[in-house]
């Protein structure tokens, strides 16, 4: 019993590694998707960036001498947040659906492995490829527009990113559970995704939103997570006093993680009872 407990973390690590490698293999097996992702993601950014340029002051000067104007910096980090957020909706959330469609979900759930490792392995693979795409877009931005992306406070930015990723795993677990419950996952996923873009200050400050919508935006955990990361990167003003905002962000991250685990386990248990694990 003791040796089992001692080996438990090592076993979890093995499961995680296996899940990560499985997802990576599956990813590189479809090169068209891979190449497509590397082309389409920066294209979304440049396309919208050109649209936003119409509004820029006519003799716009770069801020902080870093080659990227404050407005475009705001937009660039918004683009990063959106890519990362899509991980939880289309990556982690979709993982259960993919196994369902491939007909391998039952085998996986019957294996003596932790359910969360499937999801964490997929998250890790997506985090890796997303980071590559963001890095590649940053380099493209430099070569095409001469703009250098810099982060004012890298330590606080990494802290924010860590909290953000914890939240994404939690939220992704909830979304993964949702795929076992509802058929119209794509429609719900789209709604959540677009809601995130508008309501959490990813692409523009929430102060632009009208009053009742602004109040709702203030209730969303991702609003604060976006806000602290952008503050660390660009020095933009925070919504709340600094200490309070970090406390809120930490609570939001931990809360979302706990909520995600509880929701996933409950939905999975419910689906087992109803026999609907592979049928939603």
């Amino acid at each position, binding site marked *: 019993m003791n040796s089992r407990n001692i080996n438990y973390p090592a076993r979890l690590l093995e499961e995680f590694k296996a899940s990560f490698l499985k997802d990576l293999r599956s990813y590189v097996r479809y090169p068209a998707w891979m190449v497509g992702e590397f082309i389409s993601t920066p294209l979304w950014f440049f396309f919208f960036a050109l649209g936003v340029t*119409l509004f820029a002051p006519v003799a716009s000067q770069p801020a902080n001498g870093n080659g990227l*104007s404050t407005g475009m910096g705001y937009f660039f980090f918004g683009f990063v947040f959106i890519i990362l957020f899509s991980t939880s909706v289309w990556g982690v959330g979709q993982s259960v659906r993919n196994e369902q469609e491939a007909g391998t979900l039952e085998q996986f759930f019957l294996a003596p492995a932790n359910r969360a490792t499937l999801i964490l392995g997929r998250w890790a693979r997506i985090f890796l490829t997303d980071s590559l795409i963001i890095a590649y877009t940053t380099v493209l931005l430099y070569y095409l527009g001469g703009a250098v992306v810099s982060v004012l406070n890298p330590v606080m930015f990494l802290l924010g990113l860590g909290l953000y990723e914890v939240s994404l795993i939690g939220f992704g677990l909830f979304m993964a559970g949702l795929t076992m419950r509802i058929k119209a996952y794509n429609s719900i996923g789209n709604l959540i995704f*677009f809601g995130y873009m508008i309501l959490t200050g990813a692409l523009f400050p929430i102060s632009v939103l009208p009053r009742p919508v602004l109040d709702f935006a203030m209730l969303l955990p991702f609003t604060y997570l976006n806000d602290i990361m952008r503050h660390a990167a660009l020095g933009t003003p925070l919504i709340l006093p600094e200490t309070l905002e970090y406390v809120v962000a930490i609570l939001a991250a931990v809360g979302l993680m706990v909520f995600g685990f509880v929701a996933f386990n409950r939905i999975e248990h419910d689906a087992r009872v109803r026999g609907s694990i592979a049928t939603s």
Partner: protein
Amino acid sequence: MQTSTGLRSDIRALAAIFSKGLKHHLRYPGEFLLFLLLPFLFTFLILGMGTAVAGANAASYFAIRTGTTNIVIYEILGGAVWMISWLVVEDVGTAIRDEQIKGTLEQNFLAPVRRFTLLVGLSLTDVVITSLLFLVVVGVSVAVVMPGSILTIIPAFLALLLGLIPLFGIGFLFAGFVVRFKEPYIFTQIVSLVFATLTGTYYPVTFLPYWIQLLSGALPQTYVIEDMRRIVIANQTLVNLYGSLFVLLALALVYPVLGYAVFRRIERRAGVTGEFSKY
């Protein structure tokens, strides 16, 4: 004995394909709803980001570059044409692949119906769907933002109808590529994004480098978006826009012929190599 050739049988086949396509769209209303919502969503996002960048002066900076302060209509027109083009490319381009995946392609190709009729039938469904999309997205926006100009949507719609012909030609071309290379969905996304970037969806094409503008000039959406903006925002008539309408007419001849020729070539090759049964 019923004849499988001739105008009457073509019309019957067209009606059947049209009705099947329409049923498909009615059965999955969520997809269409998304196409209806996206132009509004993207316009709102661009407006929000623009306001964040320029604050109270956003409209004046926008006007310096576009010649209008009517940001909503300017962006909605571009967004609507983008969604229409996305829908056409996705529908016409991936229809063959969908049939392949469902295992019904062989039955369709063995039916005594010409391939051209099959592709035109798919396009006819899209004429109805895209018209609906135009009326809801553009009609509602113009009615709310500039009600006095509501009648301008009629000539704008005519410009769109003309632009749909070369767009369907691009769809035929795309259908051929999908048979050859598979992976229609990522292909659709990339092509639609490239179109959006090149055709001035949310900015004038003059914003792009000169050599890219040459590519923009080969795409029908560039002219449709520009003509619609001139008609609705600048109150111009179709007669004033004869130059770009003439180009659209020329593209309407070139793309369907080119698209169909490429499709037939790839299809024949696929018949020889057994490509149709590969997934």
